[in-house]
């Protein structure tokens, strides 16, 4: 039950604390690195013993935050006051220059200024008010989706605390989706989008697919939209915040009937689907523990450690998933995993081909758009 106490922390207002709480807290489902051979029987509960505790976590009701752009424009200010805010925010962003780039490859002023435009797009009701600025009159009220005070706080947190922009506005534009995100949920990365393209072929067949460690629900939603009425998606996550945010996103896209979001560890909540899954996709935590402290502030200080830390080699969860997959996938079932790069890809591919004992075929390593080996795909025999 130690797990739930961590997640019960109210994230909404004390976000800088979360990371420190989580950082001190080792992941609950740590599974020591073990090599499994191909298991096809259904008597497989033994292999998941180490994570069984998590499935009994009582789901707590976390209320997902509404992204800034969806909030009602119930606040207002004057054009000169808005203009003052913009001037202040620009100055703050410009003052950064390339400081963050030098510290940890963070954003530079150019990018921060672009983010400021997006922030204004989301916060100000009528985009025309943004450009008027200086020449505007104080007579006309400018509709806002957050009070001007809050806007100062939000933009301040972006620069001074390096709070990720996506948490500031509460959403991430990912592929053709706009997904709600908040502290406690990983912000989906552009690289991950390729998983959907890789699965496309397999998705034509329909069937039941699983997205393990769904986070914001990004993959589950994208995949479900390809599947259409042809299939269903089961999405799991250990984090109650992720589960509630994913459910919210699923609802926003009207996919409640096609996607089931379940709380629990990896395949644990999906026991009834053993041997039935047509496809499995996952982007589990894969950063080696020792690299965590050197991460860019936006990631290391603000994103949930549960979503990032993959154990000593970063492979703990990937191995766990690969092993269980032989039981869960139906014959001919397809899988895609995301990894940390070349080294992990090769280890994993080798493991799937040689160690699991002829469970899988056509194991392939695929690079992301930056040319870094990123994905491992294959089929259950």
């Amino acid at each position, binding site marked *: 039950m130690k797990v739930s106490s961590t997640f019960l922390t109210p994230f909404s207002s004390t976000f800088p604390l979360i990371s420190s709480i989580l950082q001190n807290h080792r992941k609950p489902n740590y599974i020591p690195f073990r090599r499994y051979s191909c298991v096809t029987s259904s008597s497989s509960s033994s292999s998941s013993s180490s994570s069984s505790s998590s499935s009994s976590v009582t789901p707590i009701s976390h209320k997902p935050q509404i992204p800034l752009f969806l909030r009602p424009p119930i606040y207002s200010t004057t054009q000169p006051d808005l203009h003052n805010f913009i001037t202040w925010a620009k100055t703050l962003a410009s003052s950064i220059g390339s400081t963050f780039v030098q510290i940890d*490859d963070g*954003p530079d002023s*150019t*990018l921060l200024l*672009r*983010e400021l*435009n*997006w922030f204004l797009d989301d916060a100000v009701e009528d985009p*025309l008010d943004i*450009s008027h600025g200086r020449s505007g009159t104080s007579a006309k009220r400018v509709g806002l989706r957050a009070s001007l005070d809050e806007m100062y706080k939000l933009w301040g947190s972006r620069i001074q605390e390096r709070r*990720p*922009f*996506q948490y500031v506005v509460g959403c991430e*534009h*990912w*592929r*053709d989706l706009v997904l709600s995100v908040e502290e406690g949920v*990983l*912000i989906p*990365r*552009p*690289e*991950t*989008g390729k998983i959907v393209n890789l699965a496309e072929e397999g998705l034509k067949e329909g069937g039941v697919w699983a997205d393990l460690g769904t986070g914001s629900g990004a993959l589950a939603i994208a995949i479900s939209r390809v599947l259409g009425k042809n299939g269903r998606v089961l999405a799991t996550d250990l984090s109650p915040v992720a589960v509630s945010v994913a459910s919210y996103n699923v609802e926003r896209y009207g996919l409640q009937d096609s996607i089931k979001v379940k709380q629990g560890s990896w395949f644990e909540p999906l026991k009834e689907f053993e041997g039935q899954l047509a496809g499995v996709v996952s*982007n589990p*935590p*894969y*950063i080696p523990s020792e*690299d965590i402290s050197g*991460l*860019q502030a*936006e*990631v290391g200080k603000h*994103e949930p450690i549960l*979503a*990032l830390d993959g154990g000593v080699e970063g492979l703990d969860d990937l191995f766990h998933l690969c092993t269980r997959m032989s039981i869960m996938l139906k014959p001919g079932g397809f899988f895609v995993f*995301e*990894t*940390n*790069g070349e080294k992990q890809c090769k280890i994993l591919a080798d493991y799937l081909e040689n160690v699991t004992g002829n469970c899988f075929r056509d194991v392939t390593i695929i690079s*992301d*758009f*930056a040319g*870094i080996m*990123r994905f491992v795909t294959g089929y259950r025999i």
Partner: protein
Amino acid sequence: MVHFLARRSNLRSQILRQTPKICAFLFSSKSNPQNTQNFPPYYHKTRESNFQESTFLFGNAIPLLNFSGYSTNLIKNAKLSSGYDQGLVFSSGVRFFATQATAPATSDGLTVEGIVASPWPILDEDEGDWKSHASAVAQSIHLIKKRLQWKKLLVRLDLLSVELNKPNLWDDPVHAGKISREHGSLMGKVKEVMDFEQELIEHIDMLKLAREENDSELESETMNALLRMRRDSKERELEAMLAGEHDSASCYIEVQAGAGGTESNDWASMVMEMYKSWAQRRGYRVTLVDEMPGEMAGIKRATIKVDGKYAYGYAKAEVGVHRLVRISPFDSAKRRHTSFAAVAVIPILKDVSTRVQIKESDLRIDRYRAGGAGGQSVNTTDSAVRITHIPTGIVATCQNERSQHQNKATAMAVLQSRVDQLEIARQAQMNSQHTESLTEISWGNQIRSYVLQPYQMVKDSRTNYEVSDPESVLDGDLDGFILSFLSASVDKHGNSL
């Protein structure tokens, strides 16, 4: 009102009877019954007559006929044939021959050109003098025709009609599509002017009739109608300047800084701001597509998208090099500097079928690449995409959208428009309508100087139009420059039509 309408239509048929020439011209038959077979199969389905609404000329005179104009998506031409399942087969090969048209005239033989040549004074609108209204409208029609290069237009239209009447036209569907689209668009313009002209003549007849019959209600109705026409004609004059094939389209405006570092980067961003506020003043929607900031200040390059009717028609007047003379705020020695910024304007073609088909395999797509491990280790909102069209070397970049997906889509749209523009330029050159080189077409020559010091002036070297208030120009007050350039380039063809 009923009374008025009834009278009007009555009068119409009366007028129609008096002007058999108009009738003859619109029905002039180069009939070729086999033609029908040459039209594509969708021919019968595509149109419920566009023509019907505009057949006022026939009014009640031929109420039995049910017309369907042949049309592909764009075409609004005067091809009359019976609806194929309804009523009378009128003709299947009638084609409008524009040069055979005779100008409409009133019962006593007054034509628009006649009015233009007459000494009728043009008084203020509120003088309420019908001759004055009529004369103003006639002047407008004259100017509109001049701007449209009326005679040339009619000849071209006939040429296209001949082409369209060829029985083997649809053997080459691409060519046929092009011909019929152009025919349709020219036809639309011609018809619009002719309708307007006819309307004027009718009102004059009606007014005279009303006076003869002492019908004061009809007289005042007609006066009002004339006044409405007078006001309407100003708008039409303007639109006639924007009669180019793509003038009504939205567009991209690109600004590129000349050599000279920070000072010219700053100038480029001033020029960009000028266009943003110009576009916003005109009620266009402006979105930033691509921007490459300068090292210290300003921009090296930027592209905005300007959405709205005639955006391209107006903005194309700005293509060229813009020169700035001022004491540079970036020069501690306070010397005078001259900087340049080049402006390109690219239409966004509306008709998908006229766009160049870009092959996926001809593209190279580069995405922003975070340093280091990527994946979970990196969180950046930078999702810039650059697309290169390998055969032409055209490049489009976008980084202002919030996802890679969107950046790619936007960059692709810009690329498509650039490739289209190149193709248009290439074809124009083949038809030798243009003698400029392709680079001249896209970036042009120096067109305007903005002098901030030692004196204040903005002057267009093409038209010599100048103002002494650079501040207002840089704030987007560009219409004076744009309209003077457009009218100069359109109205330069002497006084003949």
